[in-house]
């Protein structure tokens, strides 16, 4: 599980690219395709292996003009789902 102090980044073998045929962003992972929505894309962009989960939530809140308390649960759920898909890992581990 990604804790508040974990520093999520893309897992080895994961890259983000444009899917021209379907006009969408695509996260390419080992034998897995994940189509993120706009919010997921902006959260993924914050996951650079340096920001902690705590900082990702703060920056995502700022981006959307909200408070960390309002977006925290949604961002944590999203990060957890992306971790389960093998898209994110904890850089500090």
């Amino acid at each position: 599980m990604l804790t508040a102090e974990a520093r999520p980044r893309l897992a080895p073998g994961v890259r983000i690219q444009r899917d021209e045929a379907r006009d969408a962003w695509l996260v390419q992972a080992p034998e897995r395709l994940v189509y993120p929505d706009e919010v997921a894309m902006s959260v993924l962009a914050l996951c650079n292996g340096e920001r902690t989960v705590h900082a990702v939530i703060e920056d995502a809140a700022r981006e959307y003009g909200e408070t960390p308390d309002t977006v925290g649960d949604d961002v944590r759920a999203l990060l957890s789902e992306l971790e389960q898909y093998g898209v994110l890992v904890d850089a500090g581990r």
Partner: protein
Amino acid sequence: MPAVDPPYAFLAELTHRCPLACPYCSNPLDLARAASELGTADWGRIMREAAELGAMQVHLSGGEPLARRDLETILVDAHRAGLYTNLITAAVSLSEARLDRLAGAGLDHVQISLQDADAPAADWVAGMQGAHARKLRAAAAVRARGLALTLNVVVHRHNLDRIEEVIELALDAGAGRLEIAHAQYHGWALANRAALLPRPDQVRRAMAVVAAQTARLRGRMAIDHVLPDHMAVRPKACMGGWGRRFFVVTPDGRAMPCHAAATIPDMVFPSLRDTSLREAWGRSEAFQRFRGTDWMPDPCRSCERREIDWGGCRCQALAMAGAAAATDPACALSPAHGRMAAAVAAAGNEDFRPRRF
């Protein structure tokens, strides 16, 4: 005819040549000889046509894809076309120098097959002394280069009881994913079914072990494992549905909806030597035959799950129910469902027939 959605991924069977002799090999009993294989330029064209059609990932497989000396060139073409490249290999012949070249050519991910956690048992199934140790060295070399690694273990009667050891081995090897795949009973595996089908108590125990380990290892290693068809009550969406998401190209250039589709005797598969992939995918009779839901018999056509499982596996319907268009016998609603359990009951510890040309 309604517009056909483009495929997401495809399996490029570059060759049927392989140094191993696993008795559950997914290749057909009638293996393609080296002389009939597509050339380098053909594969390059197929990579570009696939990407233009909308495919995002290619699984470079075989046989053993490392047996192709032009693998690096094919890989460069796939990478330049924008495809995510996955090498599916036995890895016994994967040198560090070759791995460097493949990584430099744009390889995204490596999947190595293991036969067991126990070296002598693994070498026995692979039909090659020392294979297991070589695979583990190759896996370490993959991780040392920071490449993503999946390990794949086909499970059956002779290794399923060592599932904990398999999981520990994969964890030690640094795999990000472990695929625990029950043998699929087509081709060589069907010929060896009586020697391979696990007992129901073995399967139930393994399911419980995997569920517990999956939860324990979350965030460290993903484990893919599903209930095998012989113990299921509903079919799986084989290939995500016939001609819906996925296709296979055989070593001699035929495009097929799945790797076992050639077992269906009256099918003519388009050759990509003289047919464009767009034509093969969108219009060929072979891809159209079981696409969507119009072809379905009852009870499938009125089933609320018809667009969840897409009718299951056509090759299993042929093998177990006698007709490719029949209801998949993995489904409890199939009149032939009882034959799945009967096959399990009839299985014992017979010797298997190794895969050979």
